């Protein structure tokens, strides 16, 4: 057996891989295609079994109906944008220097601190949600996008620190030494030398944090009432109220997930590499 043959396998293994890949594509793409397809079908096509996929049943009416009827969806999208942007920005501003220090500067017990930051992710949301709910109620800040955004830092900051630390650990030391020889201070080195070469992990962690915040449901359910409701809450309510208007339900779901899915597809390589680096270099 040649080495190439060992890697690629014989006809039997190739057939097996092909079958596996086909199954994988059907299994992962199927539900998503069904979501897209049924969001542009009329109700009368959907309540037939099997669904009537003839061309005249395709329509954009579900989307226009959802946009027209659910004012809460528009508000939800704005709220989600504010909450996700706020918590992502703060997480990056605070997390990037912290990640750099934990990777490169002589911080006492840097590895221990990095591990503790990751360990906070083991906390079940419900455990911190109850005390947070009591405190935020007492402060009168329930149903406020910024109190929700601050709570989201509890998971966004660790994500950012982990992804960026993984990257910073892999930068060759020579770059910082050269900067020091040229007389750059530590802040200048970080700002003018390190950050400009860290674009891709910065983007990865930002997209990651943004997606997590956009999709978060549990804290939003507990900490908002109406004014600060985010998209997932609106969708959940919508699905409860209009659970027989399938096309509109799917259209609402498509609208709510489209922005982050586009982001994720656009930056998929950075996200994957960033996350894998952060996890494996710890």
């Amino acid at each position, binding site marked *: *057996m040649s*080495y190439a043959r*060992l*890697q*690629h396998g014989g006809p039997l293994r190739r057939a097996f*891989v092909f079958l596996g*890949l086909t199954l*994988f594509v059907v*299994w*992962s793409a199927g*539900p*998503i295609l*069904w979501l897209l397809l049924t969001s542009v079908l009329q109700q009368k096509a*959907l*309540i037939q*079994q099997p669904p009537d996929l003839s061309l005249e049943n395709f329509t954009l009416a579900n989307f226009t109906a959802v946009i027209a009827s659910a004012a809460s969806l528009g508000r939800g999208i704005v709220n989600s944008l504010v909450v996700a942007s706020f918590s992502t920005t703060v997480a990056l501003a605070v*997390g990037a*220097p*912290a990640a750099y*220090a934990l990777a490169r*500067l*002589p*911080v006492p017990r840097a590895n221990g*601190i990095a591990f503790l930051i990751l360990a*906070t*992710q*083991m*906390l*079940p*949301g*419900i455990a*911190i*949600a*109850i*005390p*947070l*709910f*009591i*405190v935020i109620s007492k402060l009168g800040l329930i149903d406020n996008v910024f109190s929700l955004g601050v709570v989201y*830092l*509890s998971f966004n*900051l*660790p994500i950012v620190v982990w992804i960026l630390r993984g990257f910073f650990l892999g930068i060759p030391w020579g770059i910082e030494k050269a900067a020091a020889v040229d007389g750059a201070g*530590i802040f200048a080195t970080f700002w003018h030398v390190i950050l400009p070469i860290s674009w891709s992990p910065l983007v990865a962690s930002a997209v990651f944090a943004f997606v997590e915040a956009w*999709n978060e*449901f549990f804290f939003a359910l507990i900490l908002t009432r109406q004014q600060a409701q985010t998209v*997932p809450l609106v969708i*959940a309510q919508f*699905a409860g109220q209009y*659970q027989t208007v*399938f096309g509109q*339900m799917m259209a609402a779901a498509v609208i*709510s997930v489209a922005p982050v899915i586009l*982001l*994720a*597809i656009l930056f*998929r390589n950075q996200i*994957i590499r960033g996350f*894998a680096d952060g*996890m494996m270099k710890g």
Partner: protein
Amino acid sequence: MIKTYEQRRRRAGLLFVAPGLILLVAILGFPIVDSLLLSLQRVQLTGGSVSQNWVGPENFQRLFADPVFWKAAVNTAYFSVMEVILVTLASLGVALLLNHPMGRSGLFRVLLIVPWAIAPVANAVLWKWILNANYGVLNAILKSLGVIEYNQVWLGTPFSALNFLLIVDVWKSVPFVALLMLAGLQRVPQSLYRAAYMDGAGPLQNFLYVTLPNMRGILAIAIILQTIWSLRVFDLVFVLTHGGPADATVILNFLAYRVTFNFLDLGYGSAIANIIFVLTFLLATIYVWLLWPRQPGGTR
């Protein structure tokens, strides 16, 4: 005073780390401590004000005598164990497929990232439609294949509802874990495979003696993350079944939520939340101890 370069680096390090740490401690420190304290109190919400009385371990005594708690514990154990096993095996399978020269197309990566980015709530809404008893596409497909004769109410019977929750969550979880594992597979040095080839190793031996040992760390991470994630599943239960039928899909996390925010029994809810926390921590410790890559000398 003139400081040495090393001293300046040390000071900068503290300045860089401090804001992040302070922020995390400020957001999480108090809730962690308070959650423990709350579980030892009877906390009631009446008319917008909170009344708190110390009751010692009463909440925990109640907990261990509560059949609903035990039911939720059994559901959670089943759900988490199955989820971790299924997700790990399926993800490893998908990663191996995509690491094969035929699976390197960029399209597959798109397919893997999309289920991760879909909001769990939107995902639950989508599956509620797929599983719909009257018009759902699952019934349509199975009927046309002749697997079932009549439409089934998939979320209507206890056993089936819990298993469908499991399937839906596995569907959403596999892609991201597979991506992690794929990254791990691609880091196994090619020279090891060449050396194994020189020694006459076949595909199976390659997998068992080269791939798996090198994947130990990443498998550990995947299993730990999946355990943590499976214990905090909430959105899916909330949208798909709301715990029903007959509490068959009440898992501990959902029970803690229901007790706290529907029955407004905050102390009891905190007690359940602490049980989940201890459980997560113990499991993660055990996994780290068992699966973390060992150095050749046998040290850890």
